[in-house]
């Protein structure tokens, strides 16, 4: 009795005291399931200029007292609950009490943690794609579900390549300047330090940039904005790394001085039995340090230092024949046993720290200025086996497979037996490769080395080595952003950006594998032009002796500069919120060769021509609030972007030649959406249309038709993406919610690009042909992805959910050579040659369970376990590509004739049943 009375009095006093100050805004958050007050929820109000945040107290109450008159956006979010958002208008002198706000349960989407899980890199065609660009905890009901649920199939929203998404750090665009790839690997593992993000998955502009076709994220790493206290996180995954442990801490350490740091360890053993793909591993430690000083109430200067050194072993796709033979769709040809240990020949290793200084000044209530400068440096490498005049060491080389021995049953049986019983046939035979090096003690005699004639080099000349292909960057990035609140109806954001980048590309000798040296000559030139200067990789240093750590093979700089100016105006007129904006800028780049290549003595050393491109965009859009909860939005965007360095040079490793008539890429995109946002129900339905024009691509591979190592430049690639997106999250009854998402699109090529083929060792143009693939499908993502799930939230803060995904219309990555007239006419079966394979559709069943609680009002603890692919569906291809080689038919006399069939394609399969465990502790 006494107890209750005191509590009541306290409550009353507390609520009274809160209203005693001159505050403008207050409210109470209630957990709808338990009908209890929700403590520890984050509440944020922001306009274009300012952002204030607080947390709810034990009664679920929050208040703000330093707001000024104007229109603000209020968001309440808490782990385990769906966000509550509303625009509010604050008037000076009066108080706005929002009253009781019900919060409904939603799944804990630990997106950041899952971004690491799904960023397992794997080789695709000749280039590696890194993980999805946009993996922030989005507030959009479709994106939230799609990013979380569909990443298992490497889903790409609207079919866009991952390099169409943009990632910013404190307002600076961090996408790789040479490839456009997302920079997430720069801070992998630092999830809690990078949690403060402003993002959009759609085309709308933000306070930090013009709208981007494929959405964007700005990660803010100011120490003062990182969650105060300790965040400790442990994760364990059955597919990529076995363990991740991270600690993040932040606080105000002195008057207006803020400090934050984070350390994270990621480790996975290649022998880990939980790993679906043997030979893949992960070793990394990431670090973060942030220091911020606030001056008066308006200015702040923050320094951020972060890095994520990592070494990871990757997997590669193989053919269906190999998977069927071994009954293992996760076979990885990149590794073998060396002295009983698993050794992977292909490892990515990088350490690219970023140092950033950013300054912001809220000059007054209407004007904010921010400026930032960053420097990214370090090294980035990718190892591979290299060999000189020796048998191919790859275990799944086509001549080591049963399918090669079509004319000989006995030999086919023999090699099949070898694959099933002999690990040196099934995997890389490291012992043999080393022994070949041990055998090679033939002295090089009478050679001119390092300028001296008639030299003899004793020692073992390595035939097999591990090379490390490096791309080391110095990237200086600067930008200024201005946010202006002109009046209640108009906001203007704009800025300037300048970026300078020098990337050094070279090969480094990583491991001589038991030998003493490697001789730096071009073995393919040696075969075609023996005993001539053409074999030299660097005519200024002929016949160089290479030891571990030395550069060899190729060495050049790519210099890039971009300048840009952008501005967006936002209009707010009653129920309509509209924007118009654009940007304009220049991109220029050139190559600077450091080696004089013997095959191209006049065109390899020194600077190439400088290529410059104008880039610009214009956009228009807005949303209309039919009622407070029903919103209609539309966006339109036209972009012209400069090509990337990697697509502008025919063969940058050997020469300065640029692709002829290189066009900038143009994109037109439009979408229309209808969304409903109520506390208990959210959904969004969108339709979109995008036309991409004049994409270019450069590839290099051996052409079996012309019998020459060739460079291919494709230009005039057009694509059309059309589709619908639907996402819904509905609270049904008594703790149960139903969620679902559908992404259904039709992404096709709408032109027949031009393919120019040049010989790699002479630059002679072999052919100019059209690639007939108008109407073929864009690859790399399922064009239909659907999800339906049920989640239950129990009164005692635990939840469980189950959901079912269905995927279909995933197409293979095509080899353009198979669609040229010449090859089609020479094909044994032209239809088979030109056919684009579609992967099998399939279902995936996932479940999750978790709990979080607050202990002693201070410790937040949570645990989440996800079981993926409960049905163990191992037949779903998540990706794949056509090989570039063609095979010549053999006639009845055993002679090869001019009729071709394609080599079998290579596939990646989605992992079978695996788990993901995440445990966090915050205090």
């Amino acid at each position: 009795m006494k107890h209750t009375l005191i509590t009541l009095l306290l409550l009353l006093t507390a609520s009274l005291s809160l209203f005693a100050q001159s505050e403008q805004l207050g409210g109470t958050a209630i957990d709808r399931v338990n009908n209890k007050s929700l403590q520890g929820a984050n509440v944020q109000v922001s306009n274009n200029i300012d952002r204030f945040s607080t947390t709810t107290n034990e009664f679920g109450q929050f208040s703000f007292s330093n707001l000024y008159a104007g229109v603000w956006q209020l968001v309440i979010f808490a782990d385990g609950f769906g966000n509550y958002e509303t625009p509010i208008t604050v008037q000076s002198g009066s108080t706005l009490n929002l009253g009781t706000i019900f919060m409904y349960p939603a799944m804990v989407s630990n997106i950041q943690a899952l971004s690491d899980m799904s960023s397992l890199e794997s080789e695709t065609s000749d280039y590696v794609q890194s993980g999805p660009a946009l993996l922030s905890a989005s507030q959009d009901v479709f994106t939230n579900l799609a990013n979380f649920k569909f990443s298992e199939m490497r889903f790409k929203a609207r079919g866009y390549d991952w390099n169409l998404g943009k990632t910013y750090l404190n307002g600076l665009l961090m996408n790789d300047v040479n490839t456009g790839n997302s920079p997430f690997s720069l801070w992998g593992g630092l999830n809690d330090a990078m949690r403060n993000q402003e993002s959009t998955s759609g085309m709308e502009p933000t306070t930090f940039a013009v709208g981007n076709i494929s959405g964007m994220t700005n990660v803010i790493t100011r120490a003062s904005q990182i969650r105060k206290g300790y965040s400790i996180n442990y994760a364990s995954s059955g597919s990529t790394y076995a363990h991740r442990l991270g600690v993040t801490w932040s606080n105000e350490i002195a008057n207006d001085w803020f400090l934050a740091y984070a350390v994270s360890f990621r480790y996975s053993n290649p022998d880990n039995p939980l790993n679906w793909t043997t030979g893949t591993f992960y070793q990394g430690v990431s670090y973060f340090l942030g220091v911020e000083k606030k001056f008066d109430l308006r200015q702040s200067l923050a320094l951020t230092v972060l890095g994520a050194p990592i070494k990871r072993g990757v997997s590669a796709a193989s053919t269906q024949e190999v998977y069927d033979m071994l009954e293992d769709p996760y076979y990885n040809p990149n590794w073998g046993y060396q002295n009983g240990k698993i050794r992977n020949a292909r490892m990515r290793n990088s350490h690219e720290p970023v140092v950033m200084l950013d300054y912001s000044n809220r000059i007054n209530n209407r004007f904010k200025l921010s400026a930032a400068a960053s420097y990214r440096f370090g090294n980035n490498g990718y190892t591979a086996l290299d060999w000189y005049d020796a048998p191919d060491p790859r275990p799944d080389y086509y001549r080591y497979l049963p399918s090669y021995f079509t004319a000989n049953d006995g030999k086919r049986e023999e090699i099949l037996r070898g694959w099933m019983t002999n690990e040196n046939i099934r995997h890389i035979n490291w012992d043999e490769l080393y022994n070949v090096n041990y055998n090679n003690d033939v002295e090089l005699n009478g050679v001119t080395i390092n300028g001296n004639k008639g030299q003899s080099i004793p020692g073992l000349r390595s035939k097999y080595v591990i090379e490390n292909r490096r791309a080391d960057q110095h990237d200086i990035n600067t930008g200024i952003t201005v946010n202006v609140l002109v009046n209640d109806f108009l906001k203007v954001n704009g800025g300037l950006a300048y970026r300078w980048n020098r990337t050094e590309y070279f090969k480094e000798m990583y491991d001589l594998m038991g030998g003493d040296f490697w001789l730096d000559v071009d073995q393919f030139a040696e075969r075609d032009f023996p005993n001539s200067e053409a074999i030299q990789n660097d005519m200024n240093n002929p016949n160089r002796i290479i030891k571990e750590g030395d550069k060899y093979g190729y060495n050049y700089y790519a210099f890039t500069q971009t300048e840009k100016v952008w501005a967006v105006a936002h209009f707010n007129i009653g129920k309509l919120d509209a924007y118009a904006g654009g940007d304009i800028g220049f991109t220029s780049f050139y190559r600077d060769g450091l080696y004089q290549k013997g095959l191209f003595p006049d065109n390899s050393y020194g600077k190439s021509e400088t290529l410059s491109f104008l880039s610009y965009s214009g956009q228009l859009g807005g949303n209309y609030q039919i009622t407070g909860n029903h919103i209609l939005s539309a966006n339109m965007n036209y972009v012209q972007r400069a090509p990337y360095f990697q697509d502008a040079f025919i063969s940058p490793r050997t020469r300065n030649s640029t692709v002829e008539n290189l066009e900038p890429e143009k994109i037109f995109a439009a979408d229309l959406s209808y969304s409903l946002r109520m506390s208990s129900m959210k959904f969004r339905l969108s339709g979109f249309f995008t036309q991409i024009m004049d994409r270019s691509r450069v590839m290099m591979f051996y052409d079996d038709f012309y019998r020459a190592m060739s460079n291919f430049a494709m230009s005039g690639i057009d694509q059309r993406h059309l589709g619908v997106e639907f996402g819904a999250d509905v609270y049904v009854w008594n703790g149960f919610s139903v969620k679902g998402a559908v992404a259904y699109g039709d992404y096709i090529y709408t032109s027949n690009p031009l393919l120019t083929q040049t010989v790699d060792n002479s630059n002679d143009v072999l052919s100019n042909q059209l690639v007939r693939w108008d109407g073929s499908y864009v690859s790399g993502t399922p064009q239909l992805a659907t999800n339906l799930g049920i989640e239950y939230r129990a009164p005692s803060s635990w939840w469980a959910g189950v959901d079912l995904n269905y995927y279909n219309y995933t197409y293979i990555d095509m080899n353009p050579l198979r669609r040229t007239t010449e090859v089609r006419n020479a094909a044994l079966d032209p239809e088979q040659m030109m056919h684009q394979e579609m992967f099998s559709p399939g279902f995936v069943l996932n479940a999750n369970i978790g709990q979080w609680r607050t202990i002693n009002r201070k410790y937040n603890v949570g645990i989440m376990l996800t079981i993926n692919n409960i049905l163990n569906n191992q037949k779903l291809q998540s990706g794949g590509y056509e090989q570039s080689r063609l095979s010549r038919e053999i006639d009845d006399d055993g002679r090869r004739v001019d009729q071709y069939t394609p080599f079998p394609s290579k596939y990646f399969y989605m992992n079978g049943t695996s788990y993901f465990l995440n445990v966090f502790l915050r205090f």
Partner: protein
Amino acid sequence: MKTISKLCLFAIAMLAFPACNDKFDNPNRYQPFDPTGKTIITIADLKKSLWTRDNFLTNVWVTTAIREGEYVTAYEEIAHASIILQDVYIQGRVISDDREGNFYRSLCIQDETTGITVKLGRNGLYNFYELGQTVYVKCQNLVLGFYRGMYELGAYPDEETYYATSYIDVPTLFSEHVFAGDPNDLQPIQPREISMSQMARNITYDIYGNAEIHFDSLRYDMLLGTLVKVVDLKHDSTDRFLGNLYPIYKDIVGSRARRTGMEIKPELQPKDVILTWALSAVDAQNLGSQKAIEADTSKVVFLRGNIPNQEVVTHALDVKGNSVLLFIPSTMALSVSHYYSQMGYRTPLVVRTSGYARFAGQLVPKDGNRDFVGIIGIYSDRRLRAGNMVRYPDFQLLLRDLNDVIIP
């Protein structure tokens, strides 16, 4: 205070990790093969065993497919094969060298009796078996073949082929059949000097109609496959050489013309021919780049790159007047035969070089006498019947590298 200690912890953690570098130990060297306890027979005995029916070889087996044309109609007349079932070994020192590319995918070994080719079917054999190194071959389940006069050891023939054996190109078979001896014990075999006059005498025929030549007291087929030296040879630069290259040229240019609609000018009349040992893939593909294709032809050039002041035409005009690269697709490297003869003797020696040889593009010295060292072989493309000798078989010499060409 607290902050500083935290920072220290953080710094330590940072420093500790990158040093985690897993080094792999170098694997052990393979041990040389130890022949104790193994039954080793001479290569001569192995060769002889193909023809006798009452010895340890069983299952005489013939290839089946038939081919029409100017060649013999029954394969069994030019190819024989027999699978070896006994667990016997042969051993010999390596006399071929595929480093220079002329012995693509084959290994020739020679013991005190004779030599034989082992069709190993692997690139870069010199990486595993060096010149002069002893090699042991486990013959059980390999096929001993006889093809156009030469013996070979290989794998079971493909279905429907006219070759006696196929290459032993299954990776499991390498380590099960061919074993390297001590790599430090390299003793190159000394070549035996022979003369062409002796090559032509005393041809007799065995019961199968195969030609046998007795040379001193050594059966002819015991000479084939061994390392020999022939001296005082002169290049035969008559049309017989050009006859070998010229049809190739017509073939290639013709096929190119068909593809591109190019007009072919009247036939080439080469006056000034530069000879190379063989045609590498690049040179064969550029064979079309000859001024012969244009209106006036005076020079035929087979080589590009190395020789200064050579005009090499790389483009021509097709029927539409478009400039077309004279690049012949689907052309592989071509083997070329050069004819040499010793003074006064009819029987020529053919020095045949594969287009895959690194020295293929090197110039052939035309004038003067040469000595050659190489592996002697024979190529019978006609069935030689008793009493109805159509022509002599070609004796072929395969060079290992240009050190085998001795200019006295």
